[in-house]
């Protein structure tokens, strides 16, 4: 589609942008006013001048920086691991022939359908058997490879890597891992970038398991933010200043990763 998009496209996108950004702006608004104003529900349209004082209170109430660091570490490690292992497995399912491929893939998908709420108890038992409870390991290990990621990469690579390219590489005597590295991995980059970002966000927003698995002195950011709600009443301005502050590193990350993501997607377009 080479034609430049018109007014309508930008209009629709802008509408969508406003919808996406409004709640974020709203939490910033509430976080920037005093608690009396925040408690009244719908705030004035313009930010007040109390964001930093509220944010400072939030930082003083919870182990903010430590939690932020923990979340960054856990999310980054998990995201990198998921991308690597899932691309590998997705590629195998998409492009390599082996006995049991179909049933195994169905099995992978089926594991996603198992409700996870109950898994918490046995998982905790397991983690304490291994001696991992209370450490960041316990929130990283379970998500090192996800069925979601395997399935996603498989579906993407099925069409994104032409069979003849794989075949040609093999004719040339390339080993399997070289084919993966030089043919599949570059083609997988757009999807890998997306998977990276999603896994990162998924782990970042996860609440229940980190709450259970980690000691409160060493929490992830969501668990720490939840502590802001303790006390006799919900101090909206405090809670929302804290949550807004915690999204700033993510926005920075988005800007950094965003360019990569887009160029990655564009490269995908060159292939075919």
């Amino acid at each position, binding site marked *: 589609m080479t034609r430049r998009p018109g007014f309508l496209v930008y209009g629709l996108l802008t509408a969508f942008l406003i919808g996406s950004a409004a709640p974020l702006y709203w939490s910033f608004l509430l976080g920037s006013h005093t608690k009396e104003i925040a408690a009244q529900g719908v705030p004035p349209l313009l930010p007040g001048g109390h964001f930093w004082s509220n944010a400072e209170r939030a930082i003083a109430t919870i182990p903010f920086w430590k939690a932020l660091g923990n979340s960054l570490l856990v999310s980054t490690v998990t995201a990198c691991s998921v991308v690597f292992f899932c691309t590998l497995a997705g590629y195998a399912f998409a492009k390599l022939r*082996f006995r049991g491929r179909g049933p195994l893939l169905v099995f992978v998908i089926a594991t996603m359908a198992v409700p996870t709420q109950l898994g918490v108890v*046995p998982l905790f038992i397991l983690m304490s058997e291994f001696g991992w409870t209370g450490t960041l390991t316990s929130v990283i290990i379970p998500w090192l490879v996800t069925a979601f990621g395997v399935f996603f990469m498989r579906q993407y690579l099925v069409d994104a890597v032409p069979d003849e390219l794989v075949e040609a590489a093999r004719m040339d005597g390339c080993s399997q891992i070289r084919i993966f590295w030089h043919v599949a991995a570059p083609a997988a980059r757009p999807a890998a970038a997306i998977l990276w970002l999603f896994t990162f966000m998924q782990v970042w927003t996860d609440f229940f398991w980190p709450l259970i698995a980690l000691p409160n002195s060493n929490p992830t950011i969501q668990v720490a933010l939840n502590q802001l709600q303790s006390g006799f009443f919900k101090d909206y301005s405090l809670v929302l200043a804290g949550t807004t502050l915690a999204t700033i590193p993510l926005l920075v990350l988005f800007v950094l990763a965003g360019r990569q993501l887009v160029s990655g997607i564009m490269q*995908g377009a060159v292939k075919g």
Partner: protein
Amino acid sequence: MSNSTASRGGGTQTVPPTREGSPTASGPAGRAPRPEWRQRLTRLDVRLSPYLYISPFFLLFLVVGMFPLAYTAWVSVHEWSLIGGKGEFVGLDNFREVLGNPYFTKQLVNTISIFLLSSVPQIVIAVVLAALLDNQLRGRTFWRMSILLPFVVSPVAIAIIFGSLYGDRYGLINELLGHVGIDPIGWHTERFASHVAVATMVNWRWTGYNALILLAAMQAVPRELYESAAIDGAGRVRQFASITLPMIRPTMIFVVITSTIGGLQIFAEPRLFDETNARNGGSDRQFGTITMLIYDFGWQLRDLGRASATAWLLFVVICVFGIANFLLIRRVGALGGER
């Protein structure tokens, strides 16, 4: 579950005609002869590599996934108190009890209703959005990243924001409706309205994400296809229907199946939306879902037996929907593919 057809339907066998038929023979036939050991090594490489590549998933599953599954299966056929532990073996009694519980039926209906209200618009909008983004936009990065904004908002903030948006009495939406003369809507009390409210939260959070996934697939569609279609005089809508949609089918299948699974397991949003003490999804469980019932059995009533039985029943429901979805999309896809 029927087996290997599932994986093939994804695309390898039914690839669009741009691809040449995949070579059937594998192995280095017709090449110059190589030393025996190398050949054997290559064969070993070809045979073992796939298993090696998929092994991390299965290893991890063995270590951390298998035990919880076996545990819940074991628990579901016992009387089992969350704190007190295992009681006597009761066979399928827990399953029978859950199936006979009026809340199970009600919350199953709620789950499906919320699932339909969220997944269908979500996927439709995501496809449109992805198509819009699959353009030569000015400030591409900006637009693409912007659709992920809902994703960075913390669940704590989401609960507060949507709480004040959908407040039955002092909420923003009802206030706005009041200005145009519409009676306030009981977002937390009327069953359908509450489903709409919860679905909005879900859609707000996940549409952009699905759009980005679809966008990646759209970008991988070779541009020559569009050019030649344009030469043939196909309009943009027609190009989209006859080239884009069929070409992104594997990703489409992925999106549909994962949102089915995710939609039927919906928990976070209705729970965040709930303001009653019991947190079962409204005073009369107007928007209580199956996963919330699992939580209720397990953590409120401390009856792990019934909770596990419910979890397995939900698993069956998800599989039924998943397979139905898959079959459906395969048919639709096949029709779309005829050019």
